[in-house]
């Protein structure tokens, strides 16, 4: 099948033809050719904050683990405890090097007593697959990379529950946040998870590759009365940044521990003896992830250097944009030093030669209204 090859060129989504009919603008991301926007990225961002948006996430890596050793194996292979996780639960986790730095961040779903489902980043798929295979070798579990056999569609936004209901899955609206269930929708077996990367309510739905187009069209039709629009990667990035969610390669990488990458809340190094746990217990953080807020409309962008009030190098911006929702520039930044700078600290960002003050602020920058 065209586009389903690991070796030649960019991978194409099973929804590629749909995106082309919709007039999407494409970009290369993690080895895939994907829509960066369908029309206006600001309009798509706003739709997710106020109504709903539909994203093609078929580039995300999908792994199935089945067997009595799946849970204990993941306890060893990944940060956190997975064997004790109740059925139907999802958990944000990471796969670490023995040194405690991040190979990838991922979500683990427990779909059955001996069935786990893992979603990780596109660009790291082969690395994660190889690391999992190696680490699970001593455990009684299968590991299957389902990425090229499946698709992943996200419906995100305050109206996403209405959309999924109208699409024929009213029971899925009863799922709590970070819960997941297998359903059959129009005779198609799907996995529905109450997870997302936008800071809004929403769902991520995994389905067989050949069913992706029908599922996309089903959501599009069901969502139209609720203002659902197709959304590209540009707004996915600004949405996740407003919610201060990390993006691998920016906030997290092989030189960053989960704690240094601002994800200390997910670290329970005493809980189990997973790969990297010992290093996490011993290491002193060298840097911290902080939120920054700027004035005006000029964004501090990824890679821009920071300096302290005394002019000393202070780190760098990991992600930054003019926040579409808030109207001012926001950034995540990796600040050097054993202690995180306090909220209110002013750092200078070198924006293409112009020293520009940014203030350390609490994150997330944006929190959805509680209903």
């Amino acid at each position, binding site marked *: 099948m065209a586009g389903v090859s690991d070796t030649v060129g960019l991978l194409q989504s099973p929804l590629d033809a749909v995106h082309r009919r919709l007039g999407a603008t494409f970009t290369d991301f993690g080895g895939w050719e994907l829509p960066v926007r369908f029309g*206006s990225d600001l309009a798509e961002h706003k739709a997710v904050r106020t109504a709903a948006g539909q994203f093609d996430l078929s580039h995300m890596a999908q792994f199935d683990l089945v067997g009595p050793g799946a849970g204990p194996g993941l306890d060893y292979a990944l940060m956190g405890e997975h064997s004790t996780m109740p059925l139907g639960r999802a958990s944000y986790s990471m796969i670490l090097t023995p040194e405690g730095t991040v190979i990838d961040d991922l979500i683990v779903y427990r779909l059955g007593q001996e069935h786990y489902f893992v979603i990780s980043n596109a660009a790291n798929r082969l690395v994660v697959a190889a690391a999992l295979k190696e680490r699970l070798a001593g455990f009684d579990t299968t590991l299957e990379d389902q990425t090229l056999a499946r698709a992943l569609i996200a419906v995100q936004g305050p109206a996403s529950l209405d959309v999924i209901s109208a699409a024929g899955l009213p029971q899925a609206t009863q799922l709590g946040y970070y819960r997941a269930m297998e359903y059959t929708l129009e005779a198609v077996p799907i996995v529905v998870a109450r997870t997302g990367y936008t800071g809004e309510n929403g769902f991520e739905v995994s389905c067989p590759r050949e069913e992706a187009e029908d599922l996309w069209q089903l959501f599009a039709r069901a969502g139209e009365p609720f203002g659902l629009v197709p959304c590209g990667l540009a707004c996915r*990035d600004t949405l996740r940044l407003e919610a201060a969610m990390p993006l691998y390669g920016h906030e997290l990488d092989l030189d960053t521990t989960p704690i240094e990458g601002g994800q200390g809340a997910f670290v329970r190094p005493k809980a189990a003896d997973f790969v990297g746990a010992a290093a996490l217990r011993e290491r002193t953080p060298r840097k911290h992830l902080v939120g920054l807020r700027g004035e005006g409309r000029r964004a501090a962008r990824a890679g821009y250097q920071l300096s302290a009030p005394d002019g000393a190098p202070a780190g760098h911006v990991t992600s930054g944009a*003019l926040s579409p929702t808030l109207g001012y520039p926001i950034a995540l930044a990796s600040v050097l030093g054993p202690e995180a700078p306090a909220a209110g600290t002013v750092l200078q960002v070198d924006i293409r030669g112009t020293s520009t003050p940014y203030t350390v602020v609490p994150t997330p920058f944006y929190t959805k209204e509680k209903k």
Partner: protein
Amino acid sequence: MTIPASLSYTADHEWVSAPQGPTARVGVTEYAAQALGDVVFLDLPAVGQAVTGGEQCGEIESTKSVSALFAPVSGTVSAVNQAAVDAPELVNEDPFGEGWLFEVSPVSGQGELLGAEAYAALTAEGE
């Protein structure tokens, strides 16, 4: 994709009307506007500032990127489109009209410019 025949173009996707003067109006093309995505910030040369054809004179920021703005012609900036500075989305909505960026008058020279046909060929290559 609109490429008005009456305008001249740079390979960097600026357009210029009346490149010989007396008053040359400058903007970015529809191709550029689409490639940039939503424009959110314009850093334009100030009125009275001298610009040189082919050299950078400002920046255009979209949500995802920063792009250099090059002056198609040399001369003195005589006007800046404040409406576009205040509402950068005009660049996306009407790049050849309401979304113009600045004017140069008098014009003292030109950078390397393309006619509409040559510019159309250039943008077709990239697709």
